[in-house]
């Protein structure tokens, strides 16, 4: 079978699985899988850019996705009345001071001659800076968090349309990635993986504990939707023109409204995916892509041939992370809420990795395919597992402990299956379902 035919066939199979869901379960369920699949595909493209094209092992995807979510709150929610005057500026000031302290310490480390004076200078700057920072930061934060803590207690956002939050999420993630990359990629031996693993946890810790920022673990509910493309079901169900159209399609108002909202999201997500896919493909097939391949093949030689390897690695790390940030912002928009407690590495880092590896690292289309397939399974393995367990246990007497245990454990089949699929693909098609050319 020729390459393109095989690849098309793979996409058709995954598409068919989703369509089957539509017929056997509901179209709402199917389109929801598509929507999350689209978001996952964007995340996979980001990770694929880093791993597939530059060999950067980012196990902190979760952190960048979460930052994207944070951006949504900071951009699209209304500002909390009184928060800015009541401490917002103070917080910003203290953060700037904190940053200045670090910059000063780094400058001293670079500029001053090495020796004991330098060490004392650095420690001195850091200690003084830390206490000044805390002295301004703490009271201001306390006053922001005191504003109506049950429903607010944060500085709120800019009240802009939520679509602006998507690029903003990318920027926020890119900024964080730049900082991480600057530190970790600059290390003599590369320690990116463990740095990202840790920093992702730190990002989540900050989002959970800094209530002034986005309410921390108290969550932000009711994030606006990207109107007018995506409306509100309840409003649609009362809109006569919509009802008329629904009738024309032969759908009942509830189904029609839920479908229309989901399709609205699908449309937006698809546009983003296509744009990013196009950009990734174009970059890849250009001299830029050739240079990246050269760096991947042999860093030392590429460096000697005038390519600034560290800068290029930083560039691609920032880009990939930004894409994850965009996906994170889109996901938070789809959820309609920011819940920092939901970010967990198994789901947001390792699962995305499974998507990339299963799909085919180094191939953007592979990453997209992997994302859809794995997301489909992530959602559907559980009912399949339950069905399987029911089948296995059908012969057992009711009330037997084993039967109860097996049925109860069906949910854990999901993790198991993901691992199994990863291993099987790695074993028999080590470059993924759609390998790099």
């Amino acid at each position, binding site marked *: 079978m020729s390459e393109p035919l095989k690849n098309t066939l793979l996409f058709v199979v995954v598409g068919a699985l989703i369509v089957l869901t539509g017929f056997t379960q509901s179209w709402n369920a199917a389109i929801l899988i598509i929507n999350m699949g689209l978001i996952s595909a964007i995340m996979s493209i980001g990770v694929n850019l880093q791993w597939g094209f530059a060999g950067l092992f980012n196990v902190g995807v979760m952190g960048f996705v979460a930052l994207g979510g944070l951006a949504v709150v900071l951009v699209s929610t209304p500002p909390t009345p009184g928060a800015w005057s009541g401490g917002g500026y103070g917080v910003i000031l203290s953060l700037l001071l904190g940053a200045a302290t670090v910059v000063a310490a780094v400058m001293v480390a670079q500029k001053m001659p090495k020796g004991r004076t330098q060490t004392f200078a650095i420690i001195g700057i850091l200690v003084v800076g830390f206490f000044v920072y805390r002295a301004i930061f703490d009271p201001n934060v306390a006053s922001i968090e005191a504003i109506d803590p049950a429903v607010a207690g944060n500085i709120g956002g800019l009240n802009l349309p939520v679509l602006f939050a998507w690029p903003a999420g990318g920027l926020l993630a890119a900024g964080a990635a730049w900082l991480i990359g600057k530190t970790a990629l600059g290390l003599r031996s590369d320690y990116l993986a463990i740095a990202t693993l840790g920093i992702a946890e730190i990002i989540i810790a900050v989002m959970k504990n800094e209530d002034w920022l986005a309410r921390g673990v*108290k969550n932000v509910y009711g994030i606006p939707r990207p109107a007018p493309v995506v409306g509100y079901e309840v409003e649609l169900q009362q809109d006569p023109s919509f009802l008329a159209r629904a009738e024309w399609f032969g759908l009942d108002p509830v189904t029609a409204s839920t479908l229309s909202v989901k399709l609205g999201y699908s449309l937006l997500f698809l546009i983003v995916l296509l744009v990013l896919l196009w950009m990734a493909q174009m970059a890849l097939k250009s001299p830029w892509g050739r240079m990246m391949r050269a760096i991947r093949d042999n860093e030392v030689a590429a460096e000697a041939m005038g390519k600034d390897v560290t800068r290029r690695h930083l560039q691609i790390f920032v880009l990939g992370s930004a894409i994850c940030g965009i996906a994170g912002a889109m996901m938070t928009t789809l959820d309609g*809420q920011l819940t920092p407690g939901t970010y967990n590495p198994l789901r947001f880092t390792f699962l995305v990795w499974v998507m990339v590896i299963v799909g085919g690292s180094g191939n953007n289309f592979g990453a997209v395919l992997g994302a859809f397939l794995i997301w489909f399974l992530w959602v559907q393995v559980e009912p399949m597992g339950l069905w399987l367990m029911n089948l296995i246990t059908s012969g057992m007497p009711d009330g037997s402990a084993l039967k109860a245990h097996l049925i109860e454990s069906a*949910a854990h089949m*999901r993790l198991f299956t993901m691992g199994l699929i990863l291993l099987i693909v790695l074993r028999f098609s080590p470059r993924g379902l759609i390998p790099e050319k």
Partner: protein
Amino acid sequence: DDVKLGVLFGFTGPIESLAPAMGSGAEMAMAEVTESGKLLDGATVTGSRADTGCIDNGLATSNGERMIADGVSGIIGGDCSGVTGAILQNVAIPNGMVMISPSATSPGLSTMEDNGLFFRTAPSDAREGQVMADILKDRGISSIALTYTNNDYGKGLADAIQSSFEAAGGEVTIVAAHEDGKADYSAEVGALASAGGDILVVAGYLDQGGLGIIQSALDSGAFDTFGLPGGMIGDSLPSNVGPDLNGSFGQIAGSGGEGAEKYFAMAEAAGYDGSSPYSPESYDAAALFMLAMQAAGSTAPAEYGAKIMDVANAPGEKIYPGELAKGLELLAAGQEIDYVGASGVELIGPGESAGSYREIEVTDGENKTVNFR
């Protein structure tokens, strides 16, 4: 005919250890009704389980959609407040589906625009904070150290306890979060001990970080007595910690011992731990659905949704666990009922439960109810 109810809990993820007993609770209520044959001309009720992952919005909404597709008439869930919000906004409201959460206690959910579709059998944190402050005052405690599990439940509850207690003139020496499922709590306990206080109030979960904190605090002699909010009340705590816990006290939602004790006995007979957190609330959530359906004479959410408040609150005859058949009969006869259930259900306003509280003290290694509030 068959009525399907969705059971949407986090069977995997951080509270995976609580979810099974919650699921069993809900399903026990369904089995009870099915056996009675009294619901709407002898309808059978079956539960359809699905996972929220507790913290996976994407999975939770997908599974929510699947349930709708399955044709459920109501959803018992979600469990963690985060996913509950996501399911509510993205699945329940758009589809006009009624949801009763047994465990999402975040005040944020109360203010959400829910079109009258969202209820919960667990009381919101604000109320519990007040109750706890009262108990602390009555016991003559003047200063507390406070630690909470770092999620919306813990945080909200800690805020409520702190503000109520300080309003009543008490001192909170430190408020420190702890993460559930972490490796080690020495650092937290060290900080709490250093700050000091008459007792340590642990707004956490009894088989999660909360247990770790108490164990570690007792071991190091940092605190002898603990304040135990609802998430910490359960048989496993005294049995796991041992006699050192004697003298600690707290409260848990629940009217009188009667309903709860009955429920625990029923659960024990059915072979699971009814005292596991939110298991009683789950039973009640399922029961409310079926009673409201009976009252409305319909399984359509739009119709029975309005009846939920009616069956849950006075006036009417009080209904306890195991008496669902009686409740159904009364409703069929057109009479009013006041469902009390295992957790002392009382719904106030949109999506909130008022609930009364049992004051608990640990004596001789057992949770003893010493008072009702």
